[in-house]
């Protein structure tokens, strides 16, 4: 889902504002929200993909107007209200590695309805497998408690010009960690 959270490359957000001598938490409630999230995650009341999905479901205008911990609080409220399904057993699948270091790959171009960790700016782009990791649970199904799909995750190297066109500096590059089902083999 290309929600407002999928920010890479989107224009108009202005300069990066750095706060001098920033405290760990700006208010007491921020620490409470952070602590609650950590504890609930450790207790497996929800998984991290469910939590991220809950943040992504905040309506765009409110998402942009909210601080980080306000989003976390909204997500926690959503997850606590939702009926508990995490105890229901899920089918588990495991995919063998399809790519090796040095393989050229093309990322999936199509939009998805639900949660995904393939950023919009990296869709339909060509890159090279730089390293192989995992297997990890595929967030696209894990966030929705559909099934547990173990897949290799690849660090894929993209030239900045492949992602952004000729405005990008010729030597620059972006590395993104991508699940196997986001990728297909590229012929060039």
């Amino acid at each position, binding site marked *: 889902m290309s929600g407002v959270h999928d920010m890479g490359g989107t224009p108009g957000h202005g300069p990066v504002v750095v706060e001098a001598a920033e405290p760990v938490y700006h208010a007491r409630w921020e620490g409470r929200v952070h602590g609650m999230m950590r*504890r609930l995650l450790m207790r497996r009341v929800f998984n991290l993909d469910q939590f991220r999905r809950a943040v992504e479901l905040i309506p765009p205008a409110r998402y942009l107007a909210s*601080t980080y911990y306000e989003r976390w609080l909204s997500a926690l*409220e959503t997850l606590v209200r939702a009926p508990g399904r995490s105890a229901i057993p899920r089918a588990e699948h495991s995919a063998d590695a399809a790519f090796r270091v040095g393989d050229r790959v093309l990322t999936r171009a199509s939009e998805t309805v639900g949660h995904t960790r*393939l950023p919009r700016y990296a869709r339909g782009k060509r890159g090279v497998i730089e390293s192989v990791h995992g297997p990890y649970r595929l967030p696209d199904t894990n966030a929705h408690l559909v099934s547990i799909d173990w897949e290799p995750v690849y660090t894929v190297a993209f030239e900045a010009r492949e992602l952004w066109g000729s405005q990008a*500096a010729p030597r620059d590059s972006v590395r993104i960690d991508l699940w196997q089902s986001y990728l297909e083999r590229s012929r060039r």
Partner: protein
Amino acid sequence: MSAGDTHHPEPPSEIEARALALESLLVERGLLTSEAVDEVIRAFEQDIGPMRGARAVARAWVDAAFKQRLLTDAKTAFGEIGITEHQAEELIVVENTPATHNVIVCTLCSCYPWMILGLPPTWYKSAPYRSRVVIEPRSVLLEMGLEVPREVEVRVWDSSAEIRYMVLPRRPAGTDGWSEERLASIVTRDCMVGVAVPVVPAVPVA
């Protein structure tokens, strides 16, 4: 302290009230205790912060074998300096070289190596940084005070999965013979995110 116990002279703001209500509900349901939440806050306010990463960088600058382990098996290397608790499955340290400058971001949320750098600063979690550093890293770095020469590759790492990244900066000139402790003092959080490089203070530190 119980979730409902506040020391504010004024009534809590709406957001504070929501946080308190949620905590009360979770305590009531037996899903957490307020003491467990206190413990997380205490850990991040007192123990967990960028000094952890800085110690590893300083060690890597004086010990080539440690540096090799830090770059190939970061969790084991951190274990050697007493840091054994990690939030993510994998931790990868990427090295700045004369040819490559690395910078870390998470465009989709705000993934960050908490257990070795502490909680991320607000700018790291902000829309300007998340949106811009992938498309115009050199402009963002320049705004933050770092000019990367044209011949150096800027390599952006978008932490989109369960792997967390930290940058190993280059040791600056003028630090020969420095102790690890003194070296660690010039390794800031920003150096390990890749938006700054270590600088030797004009007035030598005692």
